[in-house]
């Protein structure tokens, strides 16, 4: 039987992979992708609790109950899309000035 714990463990693994990618990878585009991975891990968590609520429902309407988590997920997807657009634009602008997408090269705010 697949329960909420399985989903949450999967989400945690995805989140950890994403975080590791953000911190460890040097390629800016991979870092952006890793951020997307983390966002989707969060989405998965939302959906999990949407499907397996912790508290007794405030309403009997199953559709209305499930829509709360789904709405949050849609927001996250929209924000992620905007963020990806801005992030990629920044990476392109940075690449134009530095001829590189290595995040280690972008340290002019040092000290």
């Amino acid at each position: 039987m697949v329960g909420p714990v399985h989903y949450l463990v999967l989400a945690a693994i995805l989140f950890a992979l994403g975080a590791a990618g953000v911190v460890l990878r040097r390629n800016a585009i991979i870092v952006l992708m890793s951020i997307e991975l983390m966002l989707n891990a969060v989405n998965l968590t939302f959906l999990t609790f949407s499907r397996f609520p912790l508290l007794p429902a405030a309403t009997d309407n199953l559709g209305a109950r499930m829509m709360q988590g789904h709405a949050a997920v849609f927001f996250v997807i929209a924000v992620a899309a905007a963020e990806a657009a801005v992030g990629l634009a920044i990476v392109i602008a940075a690449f134009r000035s530095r001829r590189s997408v290595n995040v280690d090269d972008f340290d002019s705010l040092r000290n």
Partner: protein
Amino acid sequence: MLEVNWLHLIPLLPLAGAAFCGLVGRWVPKSWVSAVALSAVLLSFLVGVTAFREIAGGEGSPLQIHELVYSWFSVGRLSVDLGLTLDRLSGTLVLVITGVGFLIHLYSVGYMDEDPGYWRYFAYLNLFVAAMLLLVLGDNLVAMFVGWEGVGLCSYLLIGFWFEDDAKSYAGRKAFVVNRIGDFGFLIGVFVLFQATGTVSFASLSGVALPLATASAAAALLFVGATGKSAQLPLYVWLPDAMAGPTPVSALIHAATMVTAGVYMVARLSFLYVQAPGVLALIAVVGTLTALWAALIATSQQDIKKVLAYSTVSQLGYMFLGVGTGAFFAGTEHLLTHAFFKACLFLGSGAVIHGLHGEQDMRRMGGLKRHMPHTARTFLIATIAITGTLPLSGFFSKDEILGQALRTSAFSFLSLTPGSSITLTFLGPLLWAVGTFTALLTSFYMWRCYYLTFEGEYRGPADVHPHESPWTMTLPLWVLAFLSIVALVIVLPPELAHKLHLESITWKHFTEGLFRAARGGPAREFAYFPEIAAYATALAVALVGWRVAVRYFNAGPQGAARAQAFAARFPRLRRALENKLYVDEIYERIFVRPLWAFARWLWRIVDAWIIDGLLVNGTGKAVATAGAWARKFQNGNVQRYAAVTAVGIALLVFVLLTRG
């Protein structure tokens, strides 16, 4: 009491004159400066005369006139009005200040004629007159203190008037610093009185009976101020050095008016001093010792102005002896006569210095009577007056003080703490004896000064041709000499005045009821020593002093040889007296050098090291070091930031979850 609205004109006119001379005097002709300065003081004198006529009239005239100029400030319990009171004491002093002040302004027109700082000089002099008038007229301790500090400031400015000369500007600084010591005491005394009574006005204070300890503390502290301003032991050292200023300044500030402020203050606060009999005795003792001490030094000075300076210190000592024995009228009447003859002496010495192109050493004078007859004659009159020889004013005023000291009852009821009572009946006669001996010295050194300067042969360099001064300088001399003579009518002893029907204008009668009586009661008849014997003694010592001076200093080369031989018998005493008894050197060792060392310690250690180094620069360095350390985290590596943020949030979540 009469309320008027024009009393403020008396100090305001010289103040306006000072403002004119100081602000625009530089750019206007010299004649304008002197015209404004002189007319300001003269107008002030005329207003003073008008006011004086109000109170000095016969029966039914008010005892004092008062003006409330404005409410100055009010803070908590303390509220101070700028009020002016003119009674018989302050009114007389107003006349002396503006009258003698005018004569000295007139004299200065001739004396300072060549000086480039002409406008500055008259600005200071007018400002001084304004401050002195405020000191005298102020109806409360705070207003008096403003005048007190104002005259101190003008004194400093005028002593250091020729500030290009280091020694003169140092003398000004010395006067200021020594006066600050006294003023500190004065200020604390004012605080003590305010703390005890909640008021600073003379009118309210005079009605309050203070506990003995409070009265003694306040009286003693205020007297500390008086020892500074009026040059008494141990703070007299600034006055001889103050002779660095222009001579008319020495006459006005350092002889006639400012230095008597302490005597005036004690007399004005007689209601306080009679409540502190121990302090009164202290004042009498300090005054007598000062008189003797300064007279001893004066006998061996060679600088004509230094002789007069020590003589002033000595005469001020007499005044304090007078007020200290509870005879406030005697002290103040000597103040008045002294103002005339000492101003005359100083102006005479100024004329001599002027005529000899700056020479002050009496060893290079002599025989000046032929060249400056007016100066010599007026100097002679003033000398007779100060030596206390019949029949000039100085005889009666000095003798009144000595007579009061001999017969005083002020010392038969001494106590500093309640319950204890000490009787020092021997103190009065003792002070009288010392004072009488001092009178002998006074007579000796003043005649010595006169003979060395005006008699004998001229001993100065041949290329200096002594000449008489212009009329603006000789006229004040004659007026002051005349006043030194006629002032005797106000100081006549009561019996004599009664016979001559002059009793109503004698100072003692005039100031009746103005001063409180000392606790021991009024002076009593001294059975073993009738008054006539006291007069005879006083006259005898004056004549003995004169004969001694004649023997040594008016007997040609023979006399000079005798003086040399006499001095050679006491070489060490002679040297000590010539060196002013080494007081300056002793003060230098005990106070000045340790203070310098302390100041240097404060500068090098406390200021440069602790404040500048440790506190100011230390704060900066600490911030810079902390910044340098914190900067290491800002390495610009976005991934490091992300890692730290992630770890931080993880920890935060962990803590929040586990703390439940």
